[in-house]
């Protein structure tokens, strides 16, 4: 029973750690499916986190904070768009620039405005997204196994967690069942075919990266106003890159993206859980190894051991209409 409780807590932690990865991963999915590589997920998430925490601290509303986070992140996405779509710049360089810009600007503005070493003030009450208890939690709490699963795994998360998981089927639907999705995917595979079909490729790509901005903003807001109670320097801690790894791992498909993010989320929950724990035979668990697993798995995947990861064919190439 104790083992079971531990497992449930580990899985609950997995869910909480999966959310930012999942949002960022789906964000990258929209962008890359339209043919724009986005290595700047990390930067957009960080800027979004800062924007959300700042506005939440000033207004006391987590929701206003979230919209501010989305706004900041979309603005960053548009910088990426103007550089790489309108001016046909190198998408990787533009993405790296976004990451640097976010890392520097958040700390600079944070220090200037709040004078707390780059932090934003501590958020309390409505300035944070608080956990929601679903109906019947109290009644079910004492039911063995099921009660524990319901209270800790299904109930007891903040609204952004539910939004994140709902985004997966939504993305699947948009991508594969709608006109917008068809055109988006075609833009990333063969933009010339899209152009000759009378569709504006660059407009499609801009729409895609705006969605990317929105989802990165949500991921950032989750980090600073739901998971933590405020912004701290470099709080994304490489999650944008792990999300990118998950995207490759999932072969740019939304449902596999969910499982890739859950796997990577589980690995980082496990890493936290085993910190300093002495296990029989192995001794102290090398936490760094567990934390490195997402990258190791992705490298193994890219080396071709687990199927083949082929990205959108036109990814990374600016679309030029006239020769």
């Amino acid at each position, binding site marked *: 029973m104790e083992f079971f409780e531990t497992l449930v807590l580990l899985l609950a932690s997995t869910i909480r750690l999966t959310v930012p990865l999942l949002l960022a991963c789906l964000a990258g999915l929209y962008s890359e499916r339209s043919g724009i590589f986005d290595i700047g997920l990390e930067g957009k998430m960080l800027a979004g986190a800062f924007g959300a925490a700042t506005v939440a601290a000033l207004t006391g509303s987590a929701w206003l904070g979230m919209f501010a986070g989305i706004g900041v992140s979309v603005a960053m996405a548009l910088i990426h768009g103007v550089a790489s779509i309108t001016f046909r710049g190198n998408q990787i360089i533009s993405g790296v620039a976004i990451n640097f810009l976010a890392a520097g600007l958040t700390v600079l503005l944070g220090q200037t405005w709040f004078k707390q070493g780059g932090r934003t003030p501590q958020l309390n009450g409505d300035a944070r997204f608080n956990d929601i208890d679903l109906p019947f939690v109290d009644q079910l709490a004492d039911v063995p196994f099921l009660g524990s699963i319901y209270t800790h795994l299904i109930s007891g998360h903040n609204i952004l967690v539910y939004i994140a998981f709902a985004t997966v089927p939504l993305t699947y639907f948009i991508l594969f069942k709608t*006109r917008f*999705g068809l055109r988006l995917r*075609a833009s990333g*595979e063969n933009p010339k075919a899209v152009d*000759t079909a*009378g569709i504006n490729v660059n407009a499609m790509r801009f729409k895609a990266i705006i969605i990317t901005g929105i989802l990165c903003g949500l991921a950032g807001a989750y980090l600073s106003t739901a998971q933590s109670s405020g912004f701290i320097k470099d709080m994304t801690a490489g999650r944008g890159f792990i999300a990118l790894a998950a995207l490759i791992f999932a072969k740019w498909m939304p449902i596999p993206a969910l499982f890739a993010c859950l796997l990577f989320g589980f690995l980082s929950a496990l890493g936290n859980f085993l910190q300093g724990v002495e296990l029989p035979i192995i001794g102290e668990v090398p936490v760094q190894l567990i934390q490195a697993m997402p990258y190791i798995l992705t490298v193994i995947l890219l080396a071709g051991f687990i199927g083949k990861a082929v990205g959108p064919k036109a990814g990374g190439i600016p679309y030029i209409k006239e020769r």
Partner: protein
Amino acid sequence: MTDKSQANEQRPDSAAASQIAPALAIELSGINKHFGPVHANKDIDLKVARGSVHGIVGENGAGKTTLMSILYGFYTADSGEIRVGGKQVTINDSSHALELGIGMVHQHFMLVDNFTVLENIILGAEDSSLLQPSLDKARKVLAQLADEYELNVDPDALIEDLSVGAQQRVEILKALYRGADILILDEPTGVLTPSEADHLFRVLETLRAQGKTILLITHKLREIMAITDEVSVMRQGAMVKTLQTKDTDPAELAELMVGRRVLLRVDKGESVPGDVKLAVEDFVVKDDMGITRVKGINFEVRAGEIVGIAGVSGNGQSDMLEAISGMRKAASGKLLVKGQEIIIDGDDGAAKMRDMGVAHVPEDRQEQGLVVTFEQWENAILGYQDDDAYGEGVFLSIPAARAEANEHIKKFDIRPANNRLKVANFSGGNQQKIVLAREMSRDPDVLIVGQPTRGVDIGAIEFIHNQIVAMRDAGKAVLLVSVELDEIRSLADRILVMFDGHIVGEADPATATESELGLLMAGVSNDDVSVSNGASVSNQENVALKASDEKSAERNMQGESK
């Protein structure tokens, strides 16, 4: 041939039709288009009658594709008028062209490879924001079109799993699904096998019969003669002339295209075969996937002769070429150069063959023959860069390499004559000349040539053919692989036909008819052919033909070649 008689039957009909309803589907007047300093279209006038097949011919770079792209809204003209169905229009983008009923089948298909046929059909023509209704509708329309026009494709197949011919059918279906009345086809047969091309022409005839207007861009004169009602010739961005197809012939069209007389037939004397220079025995080659592509072939090539390998592409020719040129290890069998067995093992096979005096002009010049982002002088010594002539040790003598490059430019009339230009900026014909110049200048004993004139315009074809014949006359052994039957027939001294990895027959180009070769290429073996024809009879006939009326035979050849 049958093509001709068919066309003759149809022409009076369409002429009559145009007298009754002289409506023009398209009228272009005074179209100009510049790309930077290049004047790609100069004051173009063009009238296309409704319900006709109108051919547009011209060399590469003559401005055909630019003109059609203007009509399709891909580019906008700098000046000039476009009338569609009598109404003046401005076409700013492809969606506008589609609204006007103009559809285009591009040379490089505009299809998304990992989408299904249905998804490609509806892309850009979806009826609502949800896909399902459009997909259902497209499935119905496709079934209807398949019946009407012999355009069968599996609607749920992925494009990447379809043959090139089927992909082209999807392109045509895409245009028809959007309600195209005017169909522009840009070099539609360049990628097709002969039987696929025949199928395409049947489809086009049905479309014409249904009242559709077809604009056919091509540089293959034979296709123009076979299917068009009218033909317009473009040269260097200008419209030279529009003719009734029945009033012209390939020689006249070629002359108009190039601006001078062109010999469509290769002028060559008898071959004088010498010693065996290249031979393969029980040669077996597997491809990267481990599939056996060449299944035990035997042949030899003697000094002073051109042996042509004919066959529909994909029957093992490419793998054979790679193995003979040393790029790929043969699975079994022997490869002999000048009587000496060559063992290809490891990555230096191509260099080994070159050391043995075997020069290779690869099938795909851009992938295998050149580094297109390098300059011409660098490409001129590619593969020979370790020669002491270009510097000793680790150093490269750039002046020596440049001198060599200039030599090539002069001897092969490579244009523009600038050895510092990146190869990507040369036209297809000139790129091919760069490869040929490099391979022929080393005085090889054996020359292996794959698809020497693929994507090359008619003036350059003549030059390249003459160079290959000159190599033969200089006593070299030449192995020529081409999917262009006309090319094989006019160049080769002996024809070997390859089918499904086997050499299925040998033919004498002087006597073999096109239908005999066609049967061989389709996998019907030599014996079957001679049984049905009666070999002795056909031989006598051929001798008689040769002796009595060489001139008419020559004319026939011209009619059939490009």
